[in-house]
Each structure stands twice: as C-alpha cells, then as structure tokens.
C-alpha cells in the first residue's frame, strides 16, 4: 500500500514539474517533449488509481499519435527564439491573473462539501481479477450506447467538415496514378523499330583474310 502511495506522489510530482516546464521552457520542441512526459505521468497516476484501461488509452492516443503529429509540426517551424521572449513582461500580469483564477476556482470546487469525504467516499479497491476494460465496455455499449453513437456521429461530421474546409483543389498539381503505373506494359513504352541493314562501305576491310 505504502509503495503505491509513494509511486502516486512520485508520478504526480513529475507531472507537475513537466507541466511547469511546458509553459516556461523557451524551445518549443522541448516544450512538446515535456508535454509528452506530462501525459505519460498522468497515465502512470491513473494506473495507480486502478484506471488501467484509460491510462493505456491515454498513452496510445495522446502520446502515441497526437503528440507525434504535434512534434512533427513544431519541428518544422522556423522559430526565432529571441523574438519569442519579447513581450514576456507585457503578458505576465494577464497570464498570472488567469493562472490565479484557475487555482482559486479549482480550490473552491474541491473544497465544496459536495465533494467532501462524506459525500464521495473512497471507492472500494477491486481484486486482481476485476477487469475494468470489460466494465467500461458494458457501460459504453450497453447502458450508454445511444449517447456514445451520437458522439461518434458528431465526431465523424466534425472530421468531414474539417477536411472539406482545408481541402483546396489545385488544378496545376501533378500526381501519379498508381493503377495506371501498375497496368503499364512493355508495348506502351518501348517501340522496337526494324531497320533494313545495309552493308557499310568499309565492311570488306574488316573481314579476316
């Protein structure tokens, strides 16, 4: 028990450190990498809270796919680091105000009696054979199947909308048609020409005597 608590605090500390580095470090690539670390520590925290399925999905989706694309973009940006520091003082009061507001809001919510130990007791720890993947599947595809399907359709519509908004047809773009490339035969490309062979004028000199 003491070990899992130690692990929880360790992962939490790493997560807070990484999150702080994301917003303070100057190099955007390093900031993105710290964000990866923050996601990963969050997944570790969830594992200690018996939410293995969500933890693995967090790693799979955010660390494995979203952040890779994010890094992909950030690495290709040509950013002038000196210009990034300009105006830091101007934005500091506003940023600080937003941060303080967020902390106060969270404190108010978490200290409310509705979230106290009396109303929300610590859940009973489950045995080793408890499968929270199966439980989650039962809830999503059983009790909440219609909200889940509606959410899926909304996401699909959003994807189609996003793609159609960014899709620009450029008539001058050249591209290959792989089907045509595969279907090509030798006769389409090579033409063998038969020429009548005439004896060269100096042919008789080369014949061995």
């Amino acid at each position, binding site marked *: 028990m003491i070990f899992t608590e130690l692990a929880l605090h360790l992962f939490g500390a790493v997560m807070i450190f990484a999150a702080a580095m994301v917003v303070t470090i100057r190099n955007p690539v390093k900031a993105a990498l710290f964000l990866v670390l923050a996601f990963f520590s969050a997944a570790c925290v969830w594992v200690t809270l018996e939410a*293995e399925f969500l933890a*693995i999905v967090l790693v799979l989706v955010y660390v*494995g796919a979203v952040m*890779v694309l994010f890094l*992909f973009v950030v690495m*290709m940006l040509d950013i002038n680091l000196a210009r990034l520091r300009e105006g830091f003082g101007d934005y500091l009061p506003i940023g600080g105000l937003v941060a303080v507001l967020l902390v106060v809001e969270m404190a108010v919510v978490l200290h409310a009696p509705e979230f106290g130990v009396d109303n929300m007791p610590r859940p009973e720890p489950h045995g080793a054979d408890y499968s929270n*993947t199966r439980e989650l599947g039962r809830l999503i595809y059983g009790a909440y199947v219609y909200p889940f399907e509606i959410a899926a359709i909304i996401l699909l519509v959003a994807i189609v909308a996003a793609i159609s908004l960014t899709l620009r047809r450029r008539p001058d773009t050249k591209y*290959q048609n792989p089907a045509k490339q595969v279907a090509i035969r030798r006769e389409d490309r090579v033409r063998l020409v038969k020429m009548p062979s005439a004896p060269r004028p100096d042919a008789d000199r080369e014949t061995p005597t």
Partner: protein
Amino acid sequence: MGETLVSLWNLVPGWMQIGIYSLIKITIIVAPLMLAVAYLTWLERKVIGAIQIRIGPNRVGGGWGLGQPIADALKLLFKEIIIPSNANRFLFIIAPVLSITPALAAWAVVPFTDSLVLANIDASLLYILALTSMGVYGVIIAGWASNSKYAFIGAMRSAAQIVAYEIAMGFALVGVLMVAGSLNLREIVLHQQGGFWQWYFLPLLPLFVVYFVSGVAETNRAPFDVAEGESEIVAGFHVEYSGMTFAIFFLAEYANMILIAALTVLMFLGGWLSPFPFAPFTWIPPLFWFLGKTVFVLLFFLWFRATFPRYRYDQIMRLGWKVFIPVTLVWITVIGVARFFTPFGSFFT
C-alpha cells in the same frame, strides 16, 4: 548456509522481495532476448547470403561464423561516440534509450507458454499497442537532435509512416479481439485451441496479412525502410550516430522485429499450441512450438529484405491509407455481420 540465506531473505521487507523477484524474472527474459537479437543478425546474414548464393559470415568462431555477432558487439562497444556540433546533447543521447525502452518493455506481457509470462495483465493487447506506438519518439528525437538535414528527413518519413501503419495495425487487432472476446494475450491463445485449422489466421486472413505487413513497416524494415534509405539520405535518422548509440538503435530494431513476429504467432498462429492436437505432436514442449513459430515468421522478414526493392514513398503512404485501412474496416464489418446475422458465425469464433 542455506538456513542463514533463508533467514536473511525473510529480513527483506515484502515489497522489496517482490521487486527482487521481478528483477530476476526480467533478467531471465531480457538476457536471452539480447542473445536472440545478436544471433538474428547472424541468421540474417546467413539467410540473405544463401538467397544471393554467397556464404555469409564464415571466419570468426569457426566455419559457421558463429562468433561474428559477438565480435561486432565488441567493436561497437569500443568505438567513440561522436556528438555533432550544435546538436542537442541531452536529446541526442536519450533518443536511442527512448527507442529501446518500449521494445523491451513490451515483452513484459508476452506469454511464452501457458504459465510463463511476467505480467498476465488484462488489457495486454492494448498495452502492447500503446508501447509500440512509443517507439517512434526515439526516431523523431534522434532525427531532430542530430542537427542534420538527412537525419531530419529520415525522422519525418518515419514518423508519417509509423502513424499511418499504426492505424491499420490497430484495426487488425480490433478484429482479433472481436473474435477472441478478450484483450488478454493468454486468453487469445487459449481460444485458438484444437489444431491449426482453429488458429485465427484462417478466419482473419486479410487482417493477418495486413497486420504482418504493417509490422514490417512499423519496424522500418525493407521494403519499407525509407527512414534509412541509404541511396537517398545516407542512413536516415541514425546517420550521425556511432558506436554504442548506433548499436542501441540496431538492438531496438531487431528486438522490435522479434516482438512483431512473436505477436503474430500469438494472435494468428496459435502461440504455444501445437498444430496437431494429438499424440506425437503434443509431446513436444509448448515453449518449443512458440519459439519455432517465431523463428519461422522471422525468416519472412529476412526473405522480404532479400527479395523486394524499396518502396517509393508515395506508394508506402497509398498502401497504408488507401489499401490497408479500408481492407481492415471491411473485414471487421464482415466479422460483425457474420457473427450476429448469418449462420457462418461459428467460423469467426
């Protein structure tokens, strides 16, 4: 002597005992794995040599060249690690570590036999998928931290390729878990009991092919090795790496190859089960079947490399997005419809 050892052991606190046990188990898995990686390079040279009518390694350690991998490892150990000027020193060093860690950590949930598994966790299939998707960071960071154009191009190609093929791979695994009804690798194998005609490669044939080819692409092996592309970008993401840092990338690639082969065996070829469920075949220990099948699948990796020329980059993207993903989606639908609306449902269980 024995009693004092036992009493000493009892003095160790409980959680530390678990830790020591786990460390021993991890060593038992990783040490043979490293040896297997070393001898896979030897096998690769021998097999490709045979395909190309050459001899392959034949000097170090006898006529079979069995000492060659050891000699190579020693050579790489003693070479200098050169860090390019203006490279990001920390990220440059940590990139190979990031690429080998997931390759080794994924082995924690691989069941070698019915009982021989380090961690028999419930969502082991998802765990493997999550960890293999982490491997791309080693490549991207290596390419960026090297401060080299070629390395960066290699990293970009690799990132796009791995993201594309991971989706097809994930969908192929969805088919497996639909048929098996479990995310646990051990249970997936146990569902395939009763001879090779019960293994999942038959009902899931399209997914089997997609998974294996995606696996070849995920490990950046030929014919999908545009991330290295010697003829265009020298050696891709690890062009600036030398000595042990290069060796770690090499180890990671081969460890991933063995992992993909082992997963293919577990999910589609019946894991440790013998192909015929009757007498002379069931006498052979299950571990032998598992290792034998893994080596069989690994031979395909080597055969591909000797046979196919490297794909063009747009062809790789087209294959991943426009062929594999639709194929997996269609087959998942086929499985679902067949199981619930047609009399052929028992074929897909």
